[in-house]
């Protein structure tokens, strides 16, 4: 059966979330008191700022909330923030907070809390994995009780959009716990609809309803996140009725699940763009024609359909469509003849050998995709050897090496972006100042025009000019092919049909605020 | 696995009278142990013929009946005292078992066992009841086994090389014990041994076995004085007796019992063998006070 991405969520709100997006249906259903969700990994820490995985960060978002957030289309909406303004030089961003919001520990949401949060984020002693997003931030100042100002080091247009990442924590709770215990002991520290109840390591995390939630209390009393690393097991638990919602069920079983009575699937595109990085400074790969040939050699649609069970959406730009600055390009169609021709033009008609690095178990069917890519490339005369290290080794090999020392020529990798702005993808990945080691231009791609466009676009306050710049940059990148452009991965939740009101965002996250379950 | 039929014991015919001590002597592999085990029906192979004790044919008894017989009417003592006792069971318990299995109560069994241990000459019997076999010396273990064998005052005790694993000094003690016991209880004993000396110490009648057959049966004294069968004779001359007297060894060795020689089984090793011996099997013939199976017994 064909599966198309579906959206289970009804119409969205743009600026506030005072009302549930559900159709305010007539009969209030009998609700289940406890919601049980099977997830794949356990939290390492409960520190809202210390998260490295989308999933746990997602769970944190039920407890603590950011100033801005996004809706299910990926568009920016206001959350704890009432409004914002940017100074003309782009160096000062002022945010006004909503009034009357209380933290779970009773502390009122005010500028102090915001400043404390951002001061903590900038404190180098604190482990903040995504701190790079705050590179532009210099300091935070309190303007009045409900207004804060962010002073930037340089004009950085996407700044407001990065604020979706940072959860505001209660100064009271912070004081109570102290820096060293934050994250180890569950405590009421956010403004979100759910509070910590229990964390049994390796087994489950339980949250309970926060009755005074500013957006109105949720419709269940408790949610248990059961930690079940095996996708198969998670699925079986759903089928046997042990859980209500399953995070990322095994992709291969989706057709079957879809056909199973009582089970529903929520499949949504995500911002995670999957690509094959090409080391553009090495051998035949220096030649753009060769890189184009690689793009022509791969049947992306077949990959999506047969290997990924439609769990991906073909990419026509490195930038996610809902992001600011997205500009669609013409997809490289599957054309092995053209690929061979391009290779011949470049003088490689007899083929050559490459190493493709693929992580295992990190992305949907990553190893299978690797094998399929290998097979496709072999059909145009390129011999590919697979290298499948575990994740830490993979990361090390990806960003810990310079262009001569990478143990790979091609690398299958995904970039999940949380800032809905083209800059978030293009600057760190394609700007030549960002070459690895230590940074993310792991293709060692360099194009002066692109560099200039990206530099300028960052500082430009005028949004239409920015759009133009990004459009040009994307065009050049698309033509020069430092990637084999593949697809955006889809994100799946499976749930019992008794669960209603589940909202899924394109950031591989979901929202429980409107969820209710009938018995 | 390839199977071979081994007739370890073939057509043996003998009687033991009440109170007698009958010795069965022969080389290793001649079938002595098999004979012993057959008598108590513990031999793994098929046994045919008749085993009569007080007129009861053991071979006709059911498995249950023979079990009641074992230990009470007929019992056996084995060669290796160290392996014949269960290493993880207390000596006392093993001894008491003989009584309990034949219907005695626990306390009776205990009392009787104590008494028995004293009878077989084990000092500090109470303490020994509580020990495990490995805490006893070989001689002591053999005494315990003897105690088990005589516990219910059986009609017949079969002793299969009871002393060959023991030192001479201890062997002397055990033989002494056996002698005393058979005198005081009037036991009938079958003593299996390959040592003529041991047989001489204890027994009044003797049977010489060769390759699964009895070749000579009779009173010990007369056989030792004038052995009639060539095998008996050869066996005697193999024993180093007085100092520096030359041995006359018997050539060759015991035949393979899965394929014994035709005719008289001893003929390949016999200095007197004639043609008849290679063809016809001799029968046990009565000569004076004994039975001998040899074609040429009169001539040599």
């Amino acid at each position: 059966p064909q599966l198309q991405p579906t959206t289970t969520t009804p119409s969205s709100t743009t600026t506030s979330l005072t009302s549930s997006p559900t159709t305010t249906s007539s009969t209030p259903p009998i609700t289940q008191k406890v919601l049980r969700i099977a997830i794949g990994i356990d939290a390492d820490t409960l520190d809202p700022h210390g998260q490295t995985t989308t999933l746990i960060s997602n769970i944190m978002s039920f407890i603590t909330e950011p100033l801005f957030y996004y809706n299910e289309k990926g568009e920016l909406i206001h959350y704890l923030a009432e409004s914002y303004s940017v100074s003309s030089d782009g160096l000062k961003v002022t945010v006004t907070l909503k009034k009357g919001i209380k933290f779970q520990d009773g502390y009122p949401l005010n500028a102090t809390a915001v400043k404390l949060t951002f001061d903590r984020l900038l404190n180098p002693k604190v482990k903040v994995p995504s701190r790079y997003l705050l590179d532009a931030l210099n300091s935070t100042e309190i303007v009045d009780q409900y207004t804060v100002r962010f002073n930037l080091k340089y004009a950085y247009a996407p700044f407001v959009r990065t604020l979706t990442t940072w959860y505001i924590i209660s100064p009271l709770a912070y004081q109570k716990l102290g820096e060293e215990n934050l994250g180890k002991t569950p405590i009421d520290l956010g403004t979100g609809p759910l509070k910590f109840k229990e964390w049994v390591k390796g087994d489950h995390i339980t949250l309970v309803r926060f009755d005074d939630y500013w957006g109105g209390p949720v419709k269940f009393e408790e949610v248990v996140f059961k930690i079940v690393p095996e996708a198969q097991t998670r699925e079986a638990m759903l089928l046997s009725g042990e859980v209500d919602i399953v995070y990322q069920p095994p992709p291969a079983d989706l057709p079957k699940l879809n056909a199973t009575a009582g089970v529903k699937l929520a499949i949504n595109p995500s911002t995670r763009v999957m690509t094959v990085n090409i080391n553009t400074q090495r051998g035949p790969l220096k030649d753009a024609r060769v890189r184009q040939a690689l793009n022509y050699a791969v049947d992306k649609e077949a990959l999506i359909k047969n290997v990924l069970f439609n769990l991906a959406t073909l990419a026509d730009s490195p930038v996610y469509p809902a992001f600011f600055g997205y500009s669609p390009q013409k997809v490289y169609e599957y054309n092995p003849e053209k690929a061979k021709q391009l290779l011949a033009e470049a003088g490689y008609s007899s083929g050559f050998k490459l190493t493709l690095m693929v992580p295992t178990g990190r992305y949907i069917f990553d190893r299978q995709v690797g094998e399929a890519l290998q097979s496709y490339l072999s059909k145009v005369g390129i011999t590919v050897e697979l290298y499948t290290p575990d994740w830490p080794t993979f990361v090390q090999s990806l960003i810990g090496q310079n262009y001569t020392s990478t143990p790979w020529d091609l690398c299958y990798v995904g970039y999940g972006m949380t800032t809905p702005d083209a800059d978030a993808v293009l600057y760190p990945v394609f700007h030549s100042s960002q070459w690895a080691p230590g940074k993310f231009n792991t293709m060692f791609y360099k194009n002066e025009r692109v560099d200039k466009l990206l530099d300028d676009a960052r500082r430009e306050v005028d949004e239409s000019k920015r759009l133009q710049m990004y459009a040009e940059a994307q065009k050049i990148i698309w033509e020069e092919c430092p990637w084999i452009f593949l697809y955006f991965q889809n994100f799946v939740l499976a749930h019992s049909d008794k669960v209603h009101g589940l909202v899924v965002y394109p950031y591989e996250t979901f929202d429980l605020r409107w969820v209710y379950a009938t018995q | 696995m390839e199977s071979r039929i081994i007739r370890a014991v073939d057509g043996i015919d003998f009687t033991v009278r009440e109170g007698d001590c009958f010795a069965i002597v022969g080389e290793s592999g001649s079938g002595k142990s098999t004979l012993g085990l057959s008598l108590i029906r513990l031999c793994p192979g098929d046994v045919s013929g008749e085993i009569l004790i007080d007129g009861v044919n053991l071979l006709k008894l059911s498995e249950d009946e023979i079990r009641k017989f074992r230990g009470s009417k007929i019992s056996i003592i084995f060669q290796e005292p160290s392996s014949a006792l269960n290493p993880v069971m207390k000596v006392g318990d093993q001894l008491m078992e003989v009584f309990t299995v034949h219907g005695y109560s626990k306390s009776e069994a205990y009392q009787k066992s104590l008494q028995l241990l004293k009878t077989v000459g084990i000092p500090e019997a109470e303490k020994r009841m509580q020990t495990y076999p490995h805490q006893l010396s070989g001689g002591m273990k053999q005494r315990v086994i003897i105690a088990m064998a005589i516990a219910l005052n059986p009609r017949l005790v079969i002793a299969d090389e009871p002393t060959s694993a023991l030192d001479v000094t201890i062997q002397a003690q055990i033989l002494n014990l056996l002698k005393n016991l058979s005198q005081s209880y009037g036991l009938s004993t079958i003593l299996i041994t390959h040592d003529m000396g041991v047989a001489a110490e204890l027994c009044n009648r003797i049977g010489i076995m060769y390759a699964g057959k009895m070749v000579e049966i009779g009173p010990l004294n007369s056989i030792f004085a004038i052995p009639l069968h060539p095998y008996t004779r050869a066996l005697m001359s193999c024993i180093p007796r007085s100092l520096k007297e030359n041995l006359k060894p018997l050539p060759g060795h015991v035949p393979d019992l899965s394929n014994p020689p035709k005719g008289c089984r001893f003929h390949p090793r016999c200095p007197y063998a004639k043609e008849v011996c290679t063809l016809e099997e001799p029968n046990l013939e009565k000569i004076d006070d004994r039975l001998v199976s040899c074609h040429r017994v009169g001539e040599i």
Partner: protein
Amino acid sequence: MMQQYTRLFKSKRVKICLFIILSFIFMALFADFISPYNPLETDLSKSCRPPSFEHLLGTDELGRDILSRIIHGSRLTLTISFVATALGAAAGIFFGVISGYFGGIVDTIIQRITEILLALPGFLLAIMFVAIMGSNLWTVIISVAISMTPSFVRMVRGLTLQVRELEYVLAAKQLGVNDIKIMFNHIIPNVSPTIIAQVTLNLGTSILFASGLGFLGIGVPPPAPEWGTMLGTGRAYIFYAPHLIISPGLSVFLLVLSFNIIGDRLGEIIASK
């Protein structure tokens, strides 16, 4: 000694097992000729097809013919099994005999190292080893070999300790035969029956071990058709296409079973001697 081995083949079970093993060996040797398709040839449009006349065991997630992959996989499995066991046994015999024969400080050192390795579950050792060296056929073989070596050392040492006190060894020593010759001519041949039985069992165990690594995704790297890896991959499709795990699982089971039955029988024969 020869009789023992003829006795082995008297059993019907053993004959069947031997037949199974030989068929796998045959498959491994002539994989190129008998496998109906190229085991690496993908055809995404035919992915996860159930068994049919065209593909007797069906196709896998990339549309490759499973039968061909099983046939070619027997090559890998048997290679791992034989080479790893040979290496493990060789190392085990080497260190075990030395340790048992010489005793003293050499023995102490070897025993300590063995103990250390035995205190660490072999599987974890293998996981780490593969993580260090990267997974490829050789690292899998070596990690399987390493994980079986300590118990071999133990066993061989124990046997050597028994044999070295036997009279014929003492007699050879008294003659002045040198230690190396004694080890090669007297000790090793006399501990070998037990070792052979153990080796046979280990042939099976090593397959379970290697395919366990494959199952966890750290075995022989893709696209090699290693059975354990096939199982591990197929597991993701267990509901959708259960045939993906049936045949590799069955192959592992059959081969291991055959080695185990033969090994057991050998052990029995040796013990009954």
